[in-house]
């Protein structure tokens, strides 16, 4: 499942965020968009997940523009974990996970046997069985995130987009989430995510796309991309790169 953007221009009102940006998302890999605040990485992710409409350019899935697909068809290919999760009052975890099946439902919204099976598996794979009958609005941030991941698993899409999934989590929940992301990738899913923590991106992602001022500066494996001059030029950060003693991935340590 090949996803690529061609000559994207995106903006709000008069303000242009992305200007004539083209990018290929590598299939079956975990890709992270990184860059300083306001570089357009979240905007790019939202455009790729259809939340924002580009002013110019197109996004192609398997060589065909999004316009060739219906909303439902696209919802069966690409799912999104938004940055801010609205937890509706009085909705149980199981019900929320069931909503992941929305694009598969027919006119009246009746769930089939297959739908129920997907929901049960998603709840199990995201590790939220114990809280399946709890109300979502009563859960902690970390649990809520897991429940939404379960919903995305139920949606059963080959491509998964995550908008800053670790921002509001404590460290242990961040690690658990990144492992869940790796597990999704092991099942053959293409994962695209926006991350703030460079070391996290280096450790858990296969491919980094570095952005600044709405442009892609460089991309590639973490080992190939990360170096002192990039950190200085993109993040305005004086830092040294070491090798992570556990994962052997690049590790940035700021000098000041």
């Amino acid at each position, binding site marked *: 499942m090949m996803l690529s953007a061609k000559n994207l221009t995106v903006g709000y009102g008069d303000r242009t965020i992305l200007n004539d940006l083209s990018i290929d998302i590598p299939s079956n890999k975990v890709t992270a968009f990184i860059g300083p605040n306001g570089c357009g990485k979240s905007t790019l992710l939202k455009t790729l997940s259809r939340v924002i409409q580009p002013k110019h350019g197109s996004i192609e899935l398997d060589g065909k523009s999004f316009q060739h697909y219906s*909303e439902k068809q696209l919802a069966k290919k690409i799912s999104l974990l938004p940055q801010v999760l*609205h937890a509706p009052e*009085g*909705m149980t975890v199981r019900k929320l996970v069931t909503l992941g099946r*929305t694009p598969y439902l027919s006119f*009246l*919204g009746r769930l089939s046997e297959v739908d129920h099976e997907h929901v049960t598996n998603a709840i199990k794979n995201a590790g939220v069985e114990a809280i399946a009958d709890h109300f979502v609005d009563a859960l902690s941030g970390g649990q809520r995130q897991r429940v939404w991941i379960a919903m995305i698993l139920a949606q059963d899409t080959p491509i998964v987009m995550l908008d800053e999934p670790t921002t509001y989590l404590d460290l242990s929940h961040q690690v658990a989430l990144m492992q869940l992301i790796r597990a999704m990738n092991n099942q053959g899913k293409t994962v695209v995510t926006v991350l703030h923590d460079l070391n996290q991106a280096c450790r858990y992602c296969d491919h980094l796309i570095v952005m600044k001022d709405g442009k892609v500066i460089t991309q590639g494996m973490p080992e190939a991309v990360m170096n002192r001059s990039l950190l200085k030029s993109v993040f305005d950060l004086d830092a040294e790169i070491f090798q992570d003693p556990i994962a052997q991935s690049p590790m940035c340590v700021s000098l000041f």
Partner: protein
Amino acid sequence: MPLLKLSMLSGLLLLGICMGCFIGAANISIDEIAFFVFTNEGSTSVIWEYRIPRALLAIGVGAGLGVAGALTQGVFRNPLASPDLMGVSAGAGLAATSVVLFYPESSNEFLMIAAIFGGFVGAGAIIILAQLFSAQTVQFALIGVALSAFLASCIDFLVMTHPGEINAAMIWLTGSLWGRGWEHIPYLWGSLLVFLLIALMITWKMEAISLGDEAAVSLGIKPQQFRLFTLGIVVILSSLSISVCGTMSFVGLLAPHVARLMFRSNFRVIVLASALIGGLLVLMADLLARGIQPPLEIPAGIMTSLIGAPYFIFLLQRGKV
């Protein structure tokens, strides 16, 4: 569990209809009613000609407003949204008042169509204003308050400048079921049932909308399009109610809140419960309106405000809004 509570609500509605047979300007005893039920004759035709249709209308009107309120709050993810604040009530009220004042001879059907038209214009104005100011939740509600106040003052102006028709027009300012009967039942209940059914059919999409627009889009739903469609149903349901009995304030706002307090459940149940609770609210309001000081009648709309306003403040204080 929801089934039990829903049948309890239906039971209360039946009880209300029975009570409605006794209460009113003419005093009718239980014996007379029993006599009427078994023989279908006697002085008690008052019951069949006035009180039963009036109770059915009260339920229909309240149910319509309740469903409209539940849909509005759901689709805007805004607990302050209601047909009253969407410009629908005031728009429909202004249109209905104009028809009554300028074309007093027109038929019920014409009045209904005019009210629906007014409701659409009111809602359209709010949507355009909200787009212009790219309004968020609170601004949206405030725009609604402002526009509704403006339209209500237009109604006031019309009424004041046509003192000859003031009695008829007052009904649209306060909401009353006085003098309404069987002739209103077919179209009110007919359209209520049709649109309630449509509402129940689309509620599953509402659940996806409740997760936020970003999530809804990624689940394959077009939020804007869905919102407009749902708003269309809201306008029709509330304008119909208004064309029958004028503006019953607070019903559309309150019924869904009470429903959510009673049922922590899916949207389909909330919509059904809002219909029952709305019906119960207006029925009770109408019973109180004619029972407090017969033969004097207080407009039911005043009663819904009297019940609604304090309850709404109670909800605010509990942080439920």
